[in-house]
């Protein structure tokens, strides 16, 4: 199976081509959906086969390179289209194809009746193609191809309903915003790639990482490389300062939000940093930057999330916040903990989004949670799975999120410092609060919608994926049990990934000596805090429903600030966007383009016209004047002849 790993990339591409070319002719939605999902399902099976094959290999031989063909061969640069099957890429691949498959199946139900459903599945398959290229590639260039590809598909899918309005503008504006902000990050990524090539002479992962370990490269170079790559990651994975596209990306259909903006694309940045762990380990200053930005983003986004009224917006800010946690983990050197959280987050966040989609579907595209309430008796399956995901994200044991989040918080305390832990823990409380606010306002309490809406449970094709993800959210954490519970080598997940990060770990300072007591203490503190938050949310939104309004009036300024997302978008608009647009219009368009460039081109043409107007008078039809000119020529020729004698 390992050797046909390229099929996992090829099959989605074929699905894209087929649905793209013929999908509009196939009138049967189910066939289109089946093809779209089937390719991903097959890819998942192949991934699973490759996983078991790799499991059977001895620990130090678990990396296989499958070389397809030579792509770029320029000067000293040799880039092949080759796929690296190792522990890290297998984990990511299983997540992408597995969760992707489930979401594709869900979409068959969600996008039912849409007139362009074939385009939807085509783009989704294209996205999986690009994402698989990203995580399976064995060199930076192919990774960048996938990086750009997922950005493109994000644009295409966010703007899928291109004729719809969205907030103050249109969906296409949201799509453009996503793409452009991504590009800013990509610029940083490219600079990083150039610097890597310049320093190490290659763009192949194995070559670069081996050389990074042995070559004598100044730390400043490592710092620059790590910084540039991280800028790319902030763009793709929505961290400060380039997170502003993710909330707007909710303009797209909910399965898109689930797949791209929760489970897979936004984790590409995390994957990339983890893959380049040795580079980051050699640049401790940048690791601090990563951790600080991660924890700040986590906190910042959570504060915005607690007051939003659109169900998808809450989830979007939640995603930004959880991604912050992942980067916090990477920043303190806990690479496998970060990837673990990627996995559990994929489960419960996708589930949350799909559940939200189920609710939106039932409420006929209304997304405002103030209009919901008491839905649990109409949509029991959705309610139960949503609840499971909410417990998971709040970090309540034994749900999946508890183990991954706790691993991150512990590592941030043990290898980072107290402040990381403190802010991270406080954010965990906020997380629990906002997610249960969502649960209570949507599913419990009084019904706040009119009786013209008849909410109903979604069809099986949508609820079965919910159930699958729900189960995973419950049991998914058990493969990553910490040392505390399972003994020295009990953390199967970390053990599996250890060989990939071993070089980086050995470069970092070894972990300090902390007792189990401290770990248990911290764990208990966070769990109790989470439960308390849930209780408080219940109090505010079920028992004493007048209180939230009173608070919002009491802390009007703060409330306004949070509701308007700290006015960051407006600030960006004023300082960056508007000057550039105005500048382009005023100067670049009016002057540089119209006057200078057009003037140059037109000027040449009119110059020739003017000159020829004078020259044509020579042709006057009188033979004698021609003879005169001829004599003139003879004069000149004779002069030359004389001079050469």
């Amino acid at each position, binding site marked *: 199976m390992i050797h046909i790993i390229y099929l996992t990339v090829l099959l989605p591409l074929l699905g894209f081509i087929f649905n793209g070319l013929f999908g509009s002719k196939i009138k049967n939605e189910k066939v289109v959906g089946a093809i779209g999902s089937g390719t991903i399902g097959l890819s998942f099976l192949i991934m699973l086969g490759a996983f078991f094959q790799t499991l059977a290999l001895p620990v130090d031989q678990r990396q296989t390179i499958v070389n397809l063909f030579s792509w770029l061969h320029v000067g000293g640069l040799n880039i092949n289209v080759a796929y690296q099957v190792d522990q890290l890429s297998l984990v990511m691949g299983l997540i992408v194809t597995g969760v992707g498959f489930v979401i594709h199946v869900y979409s068959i139900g969600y996008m039912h009746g849409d007139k362009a459903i074939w385009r939807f599945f085509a783009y989704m398959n294209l996205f999986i193609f690009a994402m698989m290229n990203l995580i399976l590639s064995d060199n930076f260039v192919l990774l960048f191809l996938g990086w750009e590809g997922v950005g493109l598909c994000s644009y295409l899918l966010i703007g899928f309903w291109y004729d719809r309005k969205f907030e103050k503008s249109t969906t296409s504006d949201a799509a453009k915003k996503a793409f452009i902000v991504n590009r800013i990050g990509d610029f940083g990524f490219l600079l990083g790639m150039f610097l890597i090539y310049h320093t190490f002479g290659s763009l192949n992962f194995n070559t670069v990482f081996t050389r990074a370990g042995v070559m004598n490269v100044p730390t400043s170079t490592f710092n620059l490389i790590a910084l540039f790559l991280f800028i790319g990651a902030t763009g793709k994975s929505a961290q400060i300062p380039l997170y502003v596209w993710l909330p707007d990306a909710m303009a797209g259909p909910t399965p898109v939000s689930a797949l791209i903006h929760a489970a897979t694309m936004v984790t590409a940045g995390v994957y990339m940093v983890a893959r380049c762990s040795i580079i980051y380990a050699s640049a401790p200053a940048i690791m601090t930057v990563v951790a600080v930005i991660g924890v700040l983003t986590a906190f910042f986004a959570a504060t915005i999330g607690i007051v939003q009224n659109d169900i998808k917006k809450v989830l979007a800010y939640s995603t930004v916040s959880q991604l912050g946690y992942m980067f916090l983990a990477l920043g303190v050197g806990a690479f496998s903990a970060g990837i673990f959280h990627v996995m559990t987050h994929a489960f419960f966040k996708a589930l949350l989004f799909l559940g939200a989609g189920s609710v939106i579907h039932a409420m006929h595209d209304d997304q405002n949670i103030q209009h919901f309430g008491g839905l649990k008796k109409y949509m029991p399956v959705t309610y139960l799975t949503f609840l499971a995901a909410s417990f998971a994200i709040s970090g309540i044991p034994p749900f999946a999120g508890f183990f991954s989040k706790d691993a991150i918080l512990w590592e941030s305390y043990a290898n980072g410092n107290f402040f990381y832990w403190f802010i991270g823990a406080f954010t965990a409380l906020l997380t629990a609060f906002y997610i249960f606010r969502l649960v209570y306002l949507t599913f419990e309490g009084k019904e706040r919608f009119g009786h013209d809406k008849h909410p109903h449970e979604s069809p099986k094709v949508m609820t079965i994926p919910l159930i699958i993800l729900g189960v995973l959210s419950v049991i998914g954490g058990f493969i990553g049990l910490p040392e505390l519970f399972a003994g020295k080598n009990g953390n199967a997940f970390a053990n599996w990934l250890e060989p990939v990060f071993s070089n980086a770990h050995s470069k970092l300072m070894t972990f300090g000596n902390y007792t189990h007591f401290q770990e248990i203490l911290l764990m208990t503190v966070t769990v109790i805090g989470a439960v308390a938050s849930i209780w408080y949310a219940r109090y505010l939104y079920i028992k004493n429903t007048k209180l939230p309004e009173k608070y919002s009036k009491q802390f009007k300024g703060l409330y306004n600030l949070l509701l308007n997302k700290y006015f960051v978008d407006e600030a960006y608009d004023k300082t960056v966007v508007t000057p550039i647009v105005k500048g382009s219009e005023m100067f670049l368009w009016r002057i540089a383009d119209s006057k200078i460039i057009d003037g140059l081109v037109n000027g040449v043409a009119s110059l020739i016209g003017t000159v020829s107007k004078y020259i044509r008078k020579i042709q006057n039809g009188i033979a*004698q*004047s021609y003879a*005169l000119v001829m*004599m*003139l020529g*003879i*004069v000149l020729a*004779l*002069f030359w*002849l*004389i001079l050469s*004698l």
Partner: protein
Amino acid sequence: MSLELILFILFAFIAAVSAVIMITRSNPVISALFLVLNFAALAGLYLLLNAQFIAVVQVIVYAGAIMVLFLFVIMLLKPEKEKFFSSHPQVKVLAIAIAVLVFLQLVYMIFLSKPLASVNPTVAASVKAGTIEQIGRELYTNYILPFEAAGYLLLAATIGALVLAKKKFE
């Protein structure tokens, strides 16, 4: 001061003067007659250069045939005396200036440059070269092809002249 030199100066003088007069007369008949005089002087010059055949041919062809043709046409067309200065006098000045310039250049080149090869001519050889035997021999052996071509050329010219000048009857 040999006879040759005197004759040369005489003929050259006549040729040059008649040429200048030719181009400055307004009456075309006068111009034609002075051209005939010019050709005659040239024939004399050819004789001085031991080119007997050419001299004779000059007189026959040029002075005899061509100039007669010219005179026919002049008489036929009866042109008026033309104005000497056209509407663009500056063109005339420019033309004369250019002509003088070229003259000076040619003079310079002829008199002030070194000859490429030094050939010592003998009188006997040059005499022999001009005889009709020699020319005839060269013409019919080495240069037979140009000879035939010249024949075709004359044929073409004849037909051309006929076609161009005939009146259209229909």
